[in-house]
């Protein structure tokens, strides 16, 4: 028995064992997202505490411009919907359609990142100017990192949804669903961030 054979054997046997349980990979991912959400919760708590107890010096209070972040909110919400569309197409075995929707979702993610960078370059403050500026960049930067990772993952699963040789099919949707859940999570965090950072 060659090494390759035995690894296939393991996969087969593992799937046999797993048939007796629900798929717990999604459960693990949800647990991870809860943990990830706690990181954001820590950042939000720090930001709100600073806002409440650490008054900024005069002349250091900025009005944030709303148009770009509002556009970004719309972009991410639409991208959640397009991802959902891709999922529906995939379940109907229309892989080409699913792929198109995925690429569109990734495109929206990239536009989001470009808008975010555009905003960074036009803000009147830098990372070390004061407490508010530092927290602003830390929060949006950490979220932007999540969007970057998410966009890369969407591109990967879009590639894997191809008809010839792709690993994602209507029978094997877990990688797809995992990235979708992650993407919705990142969107949700953005909505909270938008409310706390820009609207409050």
């Amino acid at each position, binding site marked *: 028995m060659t090494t390759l054979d035995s690894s296939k054997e393991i996969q087969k046997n593992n799937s*046999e064992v797993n048939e007796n349980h*629900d798929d717990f990979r999604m459960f*693990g991912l949800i*647990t991870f997202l809860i*943990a990830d959400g*706690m990181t954001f919760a820590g950042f939000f708590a*720090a930001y709100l505490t600073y806002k409440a107890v*650490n008054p900024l010096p005069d002349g250091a209070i900025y009005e944030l411009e709303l148009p770009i972040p509002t556009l970004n909110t719309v972009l991410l919400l639409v991208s959640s919907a397009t991802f959902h569309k891709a999922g529906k197409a995939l379940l109907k075995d229309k892989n080409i359609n699913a792929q198109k929707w995925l690429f569109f979702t990734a495109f929206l993610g990239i536009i989001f990142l470009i808008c975010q960078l555009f905003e960074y370059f036009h803000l009147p403050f830098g990372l070390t100017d004061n*407490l508010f500026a530092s927290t602003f960049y830390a929060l949006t930067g950490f979220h932007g990192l999540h969007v970057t990772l998410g966009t890369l993952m969407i591109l990967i699963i879009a590639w894997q949804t191809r008809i010839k040789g792709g690993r994602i099919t209507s029978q094997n949707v877990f990688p797809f669903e995992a990235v979708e859940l992650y993407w919705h999570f990142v969107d949700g965090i953005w909505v909270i961030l938008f409310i706390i950072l820009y609207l409050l």
Partner: protein
Amino acid sequence: MTISIDPQKTNNESLQPKGWLRYFSFSLDHKVIGIQYLVCGFIFYLVGGTLASAIRIELASPMSDFMPRDVYNQVLTLHGTIMIFLWIVPVVNGAFGNYLIPFYVGARDMAFPRLNAVAFWLIPPSGLMLVASYFVEGAAQAGWTAYPPLSITTPHSGQIIWILSVLLLGGSSIFGGINFIATIIKLRRPGLKLMQLPMYCWAMLGTSLLVVLSTPVLAGTLILLSFDIIANTGFFNPVLGGNVVVYQHLFWFYSHPAVYIMVLPAFGLVSEILPVHARKPLFGYTTMVFSIMGIVVLGLVVWAHHMFTSGTPPWMRLFFTIATAFIAVPTGIKFFNWVATLWGGKISINSAMLFSCGFIINFVFGGITGVALAQVPFDIHVHDTYFVVAHFHYIVYGGTVFIIFSSIYHWFPKVTGKMLNEKLGILHFVITFIGFNLCFAPQHWLGLNGMPRRVAEYDPQFQFVNQISSLGALLMAISTIPFLINIFFSIRGGKDSGDNPWNALTPEWLTSSPPPVENWEGEAPLVEEPYGYGKQFSD
């Protein structure tokens, strides 16, 4: 249902090195990973213990004469960080959790074996990095709490390596926690109900919840701290308008639950060991489960009792004092349940039992001083004195480390198929117990009389008591010698233990010792009463 896997045909065997070499491989077998955690942790325990000895040598005299003061700060920082993040947390969670949980839930491995191996292999590099930071401009000096502004003003490279190392260890801890939750909730053998699980599963479920909920907050905090150090931001730097108390809140939001992350698994392990050696069912199973979950919930809302001297407003003091005092209730329930388990039992006096009883005695002492420390008027007087050091070590050494040794004596036959030498084991216990109490009991007195912690020099009037404490530390160092001799000789020449030397009923003993690669020959047994001593044991 049937799980039809022929252990000869499947899994790692054909893919991975055999014999002792597999302990150096990226093995996916939960038993191998458990031993990897244990041995790696023990090596770091020896490193941390050496550092502790250096601290006690320095404190044997009132002047700073054994090492320079900044080196003393580095030594105490590394001692704390290594003992917490590289010895206790990985061993009491990772080692015993990985080894035992799949047996307890009737599975062949953890839910995510690859994630499991990744979680382990994050530990050695980050530990080595931490130790190596001593040679790069000096290691971190700000204590294991890394409070700013101290951590921002001390030499940067050591502190940054410290942060990186703790972040990696935190990541490892989170991966482990996710794995344990998924294994216990989702991977249980069909027919096995949650309320039939051995108590260690509940302890690990509670611990993993704490890990998943609180460790990410520490990670976020340390990222902000590293921004302060590298990028010159001012999150925690008052000079730049920052707020140090925010750091303390975020830090203790992780680090108070961290105490439960260190001690809850020990609660679970002692609940496995006592019934076996007292031949009695575990007293009050249901109350045990609810008190573990009670500790989990309360443990998340008591963090500010570490900060009573940080300008905490009165309402916060009141809330956190009451919440902390409440934790004594579930903890007390567990304590009385253990005593009631022993009560009237047919107790075997062996090393595992002795270490468990030592745990109960030390832990109740540490628990009482813990309740005392939760009271604001008292806490303000002894804050940052040796009283806190004594309290903490009574919980973490007298509690958890005693249970780690107890567990090693209890499960050594399971892992190796050999018995440990009982005489050496009892000698190990006696020296450890005397040394530990000699080392830390006098520190209560030192703290009450005002000796501050983390300072290399002290008032000469404290010298005699400090020397007693150092003598205790010497005994603790000596106590590892019979233990190591015992392990090395028993692995090769120990008496054969048979499959179930303790006649235990928990599932891990219902297979051969050492267990086969996929844990069971054939189907996993359904153990509905893991503590049914006295009922089933008549034959």
